[in-house]
């Protein structure tokens, strides 16, 4: 009973103080002028990212007085949460920009987000609690799970915010503060929910289905929040307050629900039994079943699901192609469906990935020309390459293959690199050209992109080459 009362007081007080602290933080950040130089704005952004975690963790930790968790263990789980995010962010960013953005339907995006990005994030957070503290003697009471889960979530949120700051090259103080609070609220609260479920498993001896239920709930809530926040913050008018509002509503709703269930669970568990006996049970080495092994299977299974869904959706996104059929050019080929036909004519067609990365958008160009007189593929290629060298700055050929065929016709493939300008900025462009002699025509299939996105498009480029079918020319 003492535990209950202490816990309730501690939760309410720390939550309230934390919220006031966060509001103060946002208020102060609105007063900080935007640093003039780019290093300043970046450093400030990183600092801002750390503040909410420190505030929240500090107060929560202070208030958990009935049996304070060892500071070192809380710090460790916080750091492991941060490490988990550092591992997860590159992967989830990739999935977000390469796969999910390719689907325009909101429901599809929501389902995909839940089963990929959200699931991966939550699996990693749960895994940190499982591997860092679950087996320790310090994890012996119900509130412990919540504290550790929260700490893991805050560590995770901090790195998420830092990743965001780095991605946009530093933030305006207010925008950074709001984003930091957003992330801390959402991931902190979701971490706490995970921690509650883990605590019930360890202390009340709940089963596998209970573990799965916990993971499912946080994953779905995470997904809904991500998609909603994404929709809300995608605007030609900058207004970070919307997403802050969404995060606050979510955090309060989840927090209150969590508190309600926790209290009920505690009451039921401690109604007849002494707290001491529960603690003995929790510390007992002879548990009725091995929760560790079951957690391992659950986490591995969930991760496999997330990776399989990501890969599958990626294949579907990339596999969506449409046919380009040109009688004038006497060729049919398939190109990525989301690419826009920028120019089309009797001799060339140029496709551009408007939603591709970089200033110089990835482009695919197919050109054809009638052959003049007696000539050879080798000769034509050499002639074109000489022209490239004349026309492009710093043009250099990086590789060449002469042993290819396209639709059964001999082909020469050349990879190259040159410097150009796009939107007034110098960019390096990687390119690949395949020259094919088919019938009475020379065909050139060209793909160009900035180095950062070049490799990804190469897959689509080779798909395009495989789909090429040369047509018999009309007389």
């Amino acid at each position, binding site marked *: 009973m003492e535990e209950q009362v202490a816990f309730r007081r501690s939760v309410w007080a720390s939550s309230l103080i934390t919220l006031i602290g966060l509001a103060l933080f946002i208020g102060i950040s609105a007063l900080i002028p935007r640093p003039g130089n780019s290093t300043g704005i970046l450093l400030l952004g990183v600092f801002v990212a750390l503040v909410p975690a420190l505030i929240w963790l500090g107060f929560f930790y202070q208030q958990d007085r009935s049996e304070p968790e060892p500071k070192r263990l809380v710090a460790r789980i916080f750091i492991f949460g941060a490490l988990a995010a550092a591992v997860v962010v590159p992967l989830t960013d990739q999935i977000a920009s390469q796969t999910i953005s390719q689907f325009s339907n909101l429901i599809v995006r929501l389902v995909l987000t839940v089963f990929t990005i959200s699931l991966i994030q939550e699996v990693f957070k749960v895994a940190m609690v499982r591997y860092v503290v679950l087996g320790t003697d310090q994890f012996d009471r119900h509130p412990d799970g919540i504290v550790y889960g929260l700490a893991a979530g805050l560590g995770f949120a901090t790195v998420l915010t830092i990743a965001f700051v780095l991605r946009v090259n530093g933030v*305006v103080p207010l925008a950074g503060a709001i984003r930091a609070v957003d992330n801390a609220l959402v991931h902190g609260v979701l971490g706490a929910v995970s921690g509650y479920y883990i605590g019930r498993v360890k202390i009340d001896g709940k089963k596998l289905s209970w573990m799965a239920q916990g993971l499912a709930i946080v994953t779905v809530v995470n997904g809904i929040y991500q998609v909603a926040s994404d929709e809300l913050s995608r605007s030609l008018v900058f207004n970070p307050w919307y997403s802050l509002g969404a995060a606050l509503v979510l955090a309060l709703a989840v927090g209150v629900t969590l508190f309600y269930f926790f209290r009920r669970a505690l009451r039921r568990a401690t109604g007849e039994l002494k707290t001491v006996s529960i603690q003995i049970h929790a510390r007992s080495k002879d548990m009725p079943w091995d929760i560790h092994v079951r957690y391992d299977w659950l986490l591995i299974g969930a991760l496999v699901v997330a990776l399989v869904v990501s890969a599958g959706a990626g294949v579907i996104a990339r596999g969506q192609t449409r046919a380009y059929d040109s009688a004038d050019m006497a060729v049919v080929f398939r190109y990525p469906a989301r690419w826009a036909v*920028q120019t089309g004519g009797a001799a060339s067609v140029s496709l551009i990935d408007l*939603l591709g990365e970089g200033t110089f958008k990835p482009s695919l160009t197919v050109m054809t*020309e009638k052959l003049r007189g*007696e000539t*050879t593929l080798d000769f034509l290629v050499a002639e074109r390459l000489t*022209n490239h060298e004349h026309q492009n700055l710093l043009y250099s050929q990086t590789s060449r293959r002469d042993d290819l065929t396209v639709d059964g016709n001999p082909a020469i493939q050349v990879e190259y690199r040159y410097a150009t300008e796009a939107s007034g900025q110098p960019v390096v462009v990687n390119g690949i050209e395949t020259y094919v002699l088919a019938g009475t025509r020379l065909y050139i299939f060209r793909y160009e992109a900035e180095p950062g996105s070049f490799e990804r498009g190469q897959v689509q480029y080779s798909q395009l080459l495989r789909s090429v079918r040369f047509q018999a020319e009309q007389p």
Partner: protein
Amino acid sequence: MRKVLLAFAVIALAALACNVPGAAESPALEPVQPQPTAEVIQPPSQSSQPSDRPPDELTVDQIEQISRASVQILAVQQQGGALRPLWSGSGTIISPTGEIVTNCHVACGAPLLEILMTVTPDQPPQESYFAEITYADEQLDLAILQITTDINGNPVSPTNLPYLEIGDSDQLRLGDKIYIFGYPGVGGETITFTTGSVSGFESATVGGVSQRVIIKTDAAIASGNSGGTAVDLYGRLIAIPTAVNPDVREGVTIGGLGILRPVNLLEIVRQHPGAPATSGQASLPPGSDPDPYEPNDSFEEATGPVASGETITAYISWQDDVDFYFFEVSNTQPISASLSGPFGTDYDLFLLDGRQVIASSESTRSEETIEFSPPRTGRYWIAVASYSGASTSDPYTLTISYASGGGAGGQAEGRGITLTGQAVDGNSGVPLAGGTFGLLMPGVTCRQFFNAPELDMSKVVASGQTDKSGFFELVGVPTGVVYSAFFIYQSNYICEDAWLEVPSDAVDSDLGVIEMSFGR
């Protein structure tokens, strides 16, 4: 933006100039005056014809003298004030007055032919003259040029250029040693000399007579050798390197069995006069209608603005004639252009954006159509050029259709207004460079545009790319419309329905700083 383009053109030009050491030191290029007068490359002795024992090797002096008569030919295009190289080949001067032999595929179809003379073998050749085609035979792939102006465009009539005597290619025998000179490109910027022997011949009936049309050699030849110089042991021009046969490649990138055109074919070439002149004022055959649009042979002289749907009737009066037209589009709806030329000719149609060809139609006849969705509003050019054939009596007709003015809102407005703005990331306050800001056609929602399987650019009324400070410009925006607006940045986009109202009395205006935020 214009400044940027200009700056880039300057950089490109500078890069070009770097290929020509010496150009930097003497900004006003001067024609290379051949050092000694009348450097006729004489056979060692005029009487040392077949009866005498042929020499074993070319002398060092001969090689250097042949180098001087061997030139690089650059097909260039006038663009603004700059000359943009299109392709390059080699050639040989065959008379002290500046006649040059080369391949038709080097010279034919080039807007301008720049002649670069060898100064010394260690230096890239120097831009010296411009030449015009006097005779050309496409089937034999041979052309004869005449130097007409110096590099500054002043007419010249040289009398003492280094030149090569023409030998008798029918006298060549299997195994005879031959020497190739030229500017193969792959061998660097300087003149390149390779040797080999005659590996074979091929004959065909040309001009009613069966004669040698191909000499095969094992001497290394690359693409820029086209049109260049192949000499015999006496230092006489005996063939023109024309192609490489890849079937006999020896695992090297460039090389293999070279295909040469024998010089004796030049007699046949001289029966096919090429273009009489390249400037617009060609003397037309009596009785033909003068072309009302000439001169329109360049961007600067282009006829226009051509109204949408207007039919132009004009002539390609000689094969090198290129007719330019321009027109202005105020939105990004598709442009279509169609050409119909005289029977038996092969005219081609090109769409240009001021910098380069962005679409073309090059069928084997003179019936051409281009469909094109312009990425931006503003001025575009159409060029009509001949691949083969010309006529001063049978005209071609050209029609250009494009959505002019409003098109939106059902009003036939003027040209619309210009809107400017600056795109900034609200999170960081950093300008968004290289993004695309655009307005959708009235009635098209963001969902319809972005949820479509393919982004249909014809649904965009106006769009502009942001420069490195995030500034963009939308030209020709029809007024009296409420637009949905979008901004595409990296792989992200934002789109808002009914975002911008442009009242019917709106004038050119600045939307100011648009602070935006992308999703998570």
